[in-house]
């Protein structure tokens, strides 16, 4: 038996290592259970095909066709889907006692959550790559050059970063994997009540206003602009300043939910 090792002091490298260990853990999950990763990656692809080919014919999109409008919307939706995955994995950790064990270890809360967030961003990058390839295969293209296209991807990941913290917080709040189903259902109204699939202009006035101000809409509208994809004629301040709003909304969400997630992780007193 090895003897008791004297504890080392808290260092930045130690913190980074803890976060990396916990990110690595999620990557190992992918390796061990590739099925669930593949399903989560293919689900948005299925939605593109469904919406694009089943409903697309009925959608009158000015210059460019529905597919070109839909793909940026689905890219934003894909970022939102990450929230469900996060809630499921956080609640599973609580249910299986992994959260408890790690909390009883000398690992700081910020390292634990940073590990999760990093893994989630990696997942988002893979999911975006799959969706962009799907888009190219169904005839979608970016028209305004690589620089702006990368800017659009940056905005998407920025949105995902915010959703990560919402997901961690909800996961810690809900505790059981069963209750995560509620989040999986709620993702849909949030997704549909946006400009991801249709223009808010086609909705009843008050609903259209909510949809316009949905964080998802800001990102969808902004990346349509950056990709040079068609958009319905959306008027109003929110639509005209979509890039600004797509930068601000995730910042606001992160500013609210990151501290909430941290505090509830530290206060899992039961």
């Amino acid at each position: 038996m090895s003897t008791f090792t004297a504890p080392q002091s808290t260092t930045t490298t130690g913190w980074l290592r803890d976060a990396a260990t916990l990110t690595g853990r999620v990557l190992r999950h992918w390796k061990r259970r590739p099925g669930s990763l593949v399903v989560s990656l293919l689900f948005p692809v299925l939605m593109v095909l469904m919406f694009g080919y089943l409903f697309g014919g009925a959608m009158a999109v000015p210059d460019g066709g529905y597919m070109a409008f839909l793909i940026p919307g689905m890219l934003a939706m894909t970022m939102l889907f990450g929230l469900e995955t996060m809630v499921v994995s956080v609640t599973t950790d609580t249910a299986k006692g992994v959260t408890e064990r790690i909390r009883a270890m000398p690992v700081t809360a910020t390292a634990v959550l940073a590990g999760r967030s990093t893994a989630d961003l990696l997942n988002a990058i893979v999911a975006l790559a799959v969706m962009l390839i799907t888009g190219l295969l169904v005839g979608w293209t970016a028209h305004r050059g690589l620089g702006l296209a990368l800017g659009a991807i940056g905005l998407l990941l920025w949105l995902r970063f915010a959703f990560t913290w919402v997901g961690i917080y909800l996961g810690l709040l809900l505790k059981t994997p069963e209750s995560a189903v509620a989040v999986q259902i709620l993702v849909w109204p949030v997704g549909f009540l946006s400009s991801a699939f249709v223009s808010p202009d086609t909705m009843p006035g008050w609903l259209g206003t909510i949809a316009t101000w949905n964080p998802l809409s800001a990102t969808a509208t902004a990346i349509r602009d950056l990709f040079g994809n068609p958009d319905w004629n959306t008027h109003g301040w929110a639509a005209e300043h979509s890039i600004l709003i797509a930068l601000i909304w995730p910042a606001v969400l992160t500013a609210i939910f990151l501290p909430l997630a941290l505090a509830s992780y530290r206060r899992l007193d039961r």
Partner: protein
Amino acid sequence: MMYEEGFARSLPRPEVAIRALDLGKSFGAHTALDGFSLDVGAGTVCGLLGPNGAGKTTAVRILTTLTRPDSGQAQVAGFDVVRDPRQVRYRIGLVGQNASLDEILSGCENLVMFGRLLRLSAAAARRRAEELLEQFDLAAAANQPVADYSGGMRRRLDLAASLILSPPVLFLDEPTTGLDPRARIDVWSSIRSLVGSGTTVLLTTQYLEEADQLCDQIAVIDAGQVVAHGTPDELKAKVGPDRVETITRKPSLDEVFLHLTGHHPSTGRAEPMTENTR
């Protein structure tokens, strides 16, 4: 009498590994701990015995830094659980009521991950994982996902994961609850071998046989307080004198518990005093 007291005082006092002083904790209207005090000497095994809801788990959660007490104080391995939780966490192992493992990962991956989080180098974490898998008879299943493990295997892996740094203080919260008799005996033998290596163990249990088998000291907890503390034999002797006339066998710990708290340990239900206990 005088001689005995003097003798006891002259014995070298064992270093205290766990000290709880007047701990209080409430959850809303429910008082979980109410003046809980306990000293556990280094290198001893102390059993915390009590029915469901007596406060055992809350006491363990406070001592393992998972919950903050409302009042009172506690030191584990020489560090205050509230002021210095990080130092405490380096020196404790915790086996909770349910296995705390990543079910998707293999047994080996679990141990390596927890070893890394305890700041072992990659090579050292790997070495230690292999050592522990061997020690807990899990080497054959090392690369299988934990989801495929039996209840007994999970509990052994859980115990192994708590021993990565060979912590001086180990908390076992109902370590054999829900295990079949065979797996229970396996876990007991693992615990016994740990004790041989000088680890201080605080073990909560509802099973009196378990406390009797494993513990040097037993603290009986009821309604958030320690109501009696001593060796299994001392506790039995406390009840003994009243009984010698009516019964000839030694009282069981079950009877000790009933005598001390007025209710039966497994049910927690109050029972009327029978002629025997009077």
